[in-house]
Structures are given as C-alpha cells and as structure tokens.
C-alpha cells in the first residue's frame, strides 16, 4: 500500500470535490435537453431549391469533396439505402484542426450520434451540427473499409474502399495520408454488445434516409460512399447517394444543437470567436 501525505490527501479530496460539483451542476440547472425523435424522411423532399448551392450524385464506391462556409450545410441523402457513407473534415482555414472521434463521443457521453448532437474538432470546437437526421444510427468507433477489410469481407483487396477514398479526397486539397485519421460513418447501425463485440443492427437504414450537417466553421469535407466493413452485404454493390450543399442560417441563441448540453454550449463559445474580429467569413 502506498502511503500518501496529508497534503496529497487534501489535494485528492479537493479534486474529487470539484468533479462532484461539476457533475451535480451538469445534472441540475444545465441538465441535458431531451433529444427529438428522428426526422421525418419526407423532410428530405422539402429543401428549397433556391437555397441549394451545389448538388452531386456520388456513385457507389466513389468519393468526392466539398468546401463549406459557415452558414452552409451539407445534406447526405441516402437515395439507395446503401449501408454506410464515411466522412472526414478539416477546418478549411487551418487544416491541422480536424474531426476528433474521441472527443465527439467522450464530451457528449455517448457514441450514439443523432439529431441534436455535434461533431467536434481536436480543438474543443464544433465542426458540424446534426440538425436533421432521419436515421439516427451512425458509427464513429469502428471506421470505414480498407483494402484489408475488403479482402477479408469480399475476398478482393482491389475493390474501392474508404481509406483510399479519403486519402484521395485529402490529397486533392494538398493534404496527405497523415491527415486521414478516424472517420465517422453515417447510415451504419453499429452497436457494442455486453461482451464488447460489435454488432450490426439490421433493417434500420432505409432508402431515403438523410442527414443534414450544418457547418459551424469553414470546412473541407471528404465523403466516401463505400459500405461499412460490418455491413452484411455479401457482394460489393454499393448504391449511389446524393449530396447537396445549401444555405443554412448559423446557430441562434436558442438553437437545439447549441443548447443540447452544457458541453455543446461551451464548444460553441470556443467556435464563435473564429468568426468575429474580422476573421474569414
């Protein structure tokens, strides 16, 4: 048994007390808001055509990139019900800042991403807010497909895969392999069972599912349309998706995503100052 001094014991007690106070505050006045149910799939038909700035169909297996300004949003419309669309994003004004999967799940106390949640950078800021989401079943733990995962699943390492798609997407903007880290895969109902094994929940993703992601900073986004490695498809036959960039007002003071948790509020407080004092707009 390690003997600890009275001073150290006092320090430990003070640290624990501060944590208990924070925890109590988090469960009291600033209690997390209940999140709304998934968006109606029919909402996907109601995007005002005059707000759409760019629209593209990504064939199964392929990738593309989008540059978004704050004040714009990205719609991922899963027209074919394909099992998994992976994305990775960087701050367009400083690409060393990028999506951080660990902070996204840790800060929000949940690996379940859905309408009302936000996606974090490694700098304590919000990159995307999930402002609409008809699916609510996405994976940010297990990652996208790779040559190895395709060899294992389909017996063919040469098939198109998310890792190489994202390396290509990053590369088209002067970024390199080392800029490609953990990804988030939408339309991928991956859960963790009591033994810690990953399981795929069948019959969740439907054709017509969509996710709207509002950019909270200027972003470069790489999108890979390849099936999740745990998807039960036997043959490699991903369907196409439709991606739209559209005008979306910035988060007001009563915005759902901004106010869903005390943590989200603080992350917006870290993000908003990038766009004051004459910073890029």
């Amino acid at each position, binding site marked *: 048994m390690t003997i600890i001094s009275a001073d150290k014991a006092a320090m430990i007690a003070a640290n624990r007390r501060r944590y208990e106070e924070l925890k109590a505050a988090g469960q009291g006045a600033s209690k997390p808001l209940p999140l709304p149910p998934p968006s109606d799939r029919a909402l996907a038909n109601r995007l005002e055509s005059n707000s759409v700035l760019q629209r593209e169909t990504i064939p199964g297996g392929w990738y593309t990139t989008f540059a978004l300004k704050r004040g714009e949003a990205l719609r991922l419309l899963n027209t074919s019900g394909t099992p998994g669309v992976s994305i990775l994003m960087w701050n367009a004004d400083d690409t060393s800042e990028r999506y951080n999967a660990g902070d996204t799940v840790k800060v929000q106390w949940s690996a379940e991403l859905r309408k009302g949640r936000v996606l974090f950078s490694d700098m304590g800021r919000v990159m995307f807010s999930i402002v609409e989401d008809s699916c609510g079943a996405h994976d940010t733990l297990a990652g996208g497909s790779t040559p*190895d995962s395709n060899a294992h699943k389909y017996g063919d390492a040469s098939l198109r895969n998310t890792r190489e798609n994202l390396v290509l997407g990053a590369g088209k903007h002067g970024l390199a392999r080392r800029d490609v880290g953990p990804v988030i895969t939408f339309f991928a109902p991956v859960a963790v069972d009591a033994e810690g094994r990953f399981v795929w929940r069948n019959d969740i993703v439907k054709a017509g599912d969509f996710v709207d992601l509002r950019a909270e900073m200027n972003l470069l986004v790489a999108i890979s349309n390849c099936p999740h490695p745990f998807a039960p498809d036997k043959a490699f036959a991903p369907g196409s998706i439709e991606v739209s960039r559209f005008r979306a007002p910035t988060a007001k003071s009563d915005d759902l995503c901004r106010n869903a948790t005390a943590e989200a509020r603080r992350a917006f407080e870290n993000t908003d100052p990038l766009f004051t004092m004459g910073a890029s707009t």
Partner: protein
Amino acid sequence: MNTIVYDHTIAANQSWSGTVKRGQRLRIVDLEGQQAVDTLFYAAHNFGERYSAQDTLRAQGAAYIGKGTQLISNEGKVMLTVVADTCGRHDTSAGACSCEANTVRFGHHTRYMHACRENFLVEVTKHGMSKRDIVANINFFMNVPVEPDGRLAIVDGISAPGSYVELIAEIDVLCVISNCPQINNPCNGFNPTPVQVTIFDAA
C-alpha cells in the same frame, strides 16, 4: 532469457518516447494503480505509418484492447501484439485529454491545466512530427465501457498497484506516452502517479 535493455519511470504528468525493436517486449506498469497511460505507436522507419484505433477495433470485431489484441497500423500491418495483461479492458475510443477539450468538458476555467495532448505534441515534435500526426491513442488502464444503447462514460480506474500490460513488437516501433495528468475526472483517481516502462530483449 529476459534481458532488460531499458528501464525508466515516467514521473506523474510527464511524457516519454522510445523505440522498441521487432521481437522486443514493452512492459508498462501502473505502479500505484488507477493511472491512465495514453499511448501512441509509429513505425520507427516511416512515421506516416502509425497505430490506428479504428483498424484495430474493426480487425478484432470488438471495442476494447486486451490480451491477444493485435495493434494494427493505418496501412493494415500488425505493429504489436498484447501478450500479457493483468488489468482487463483498455480503451482506445475516447482519445486523449487536451486543454481545449477540457474547457468543453469541465469549464473554461480549466483551460490552463496540463493535458495529454500537450505531452504528445512535445514528444512527437522531438521526432520531426507535428499535431497532424497525433491520432487516436490507446488509454492503457482506462475503463470506458460503451453500453448497448451507445452511452459511454469514463469510470473509475480499475487497475491495482503493479498492474501491467506487455506488448511484443512485430516491427520496429516508436512508442510515445503521456502519463495522463487529468485531475478533473476519475481516470487517475484524482491523483496522477508515476508509471514504469521496461523493454526486454527477445526471450
């Protein structure tokens, strides 16, 4: 024979990096218990190839690191294998603490407290790398259960004094460690303590 070729105690809150050659074993000992050890690995001869948390989890089909886990690189190569573990589950999904994320998690007043990504940045820049090279890490001795409904929380460390993990290197690797300084949650029992790294030559 287990010849010790390197032995070092990483003081509380501090960082370390060192090379483990193919066939050598790296042992990390939680000397006083309940201490998270944030760890990254890079291929020693090509830092562009590095530990990939998502590749590792996908390849094993399970969410935690434990005995038998093969640590996979972003290029699909086995870098190390966990050959001994007296603790149990280790996290690789919750990342490392940072000054910036601390403000979001614990309040803006925690901005100027030491954090793991400060340690990582100091250490990787010694080897010519930058913030871009800091990827998702392993949190040895840190317990972050993911519930079937997706909830997760960092819970009290479960490692007892003297708990250790041992990994055998399958290629030459650079190991980078932050001995986690976090005192705002229970991952270090609110009291960061030293850990020991020992490298053994091939048995």
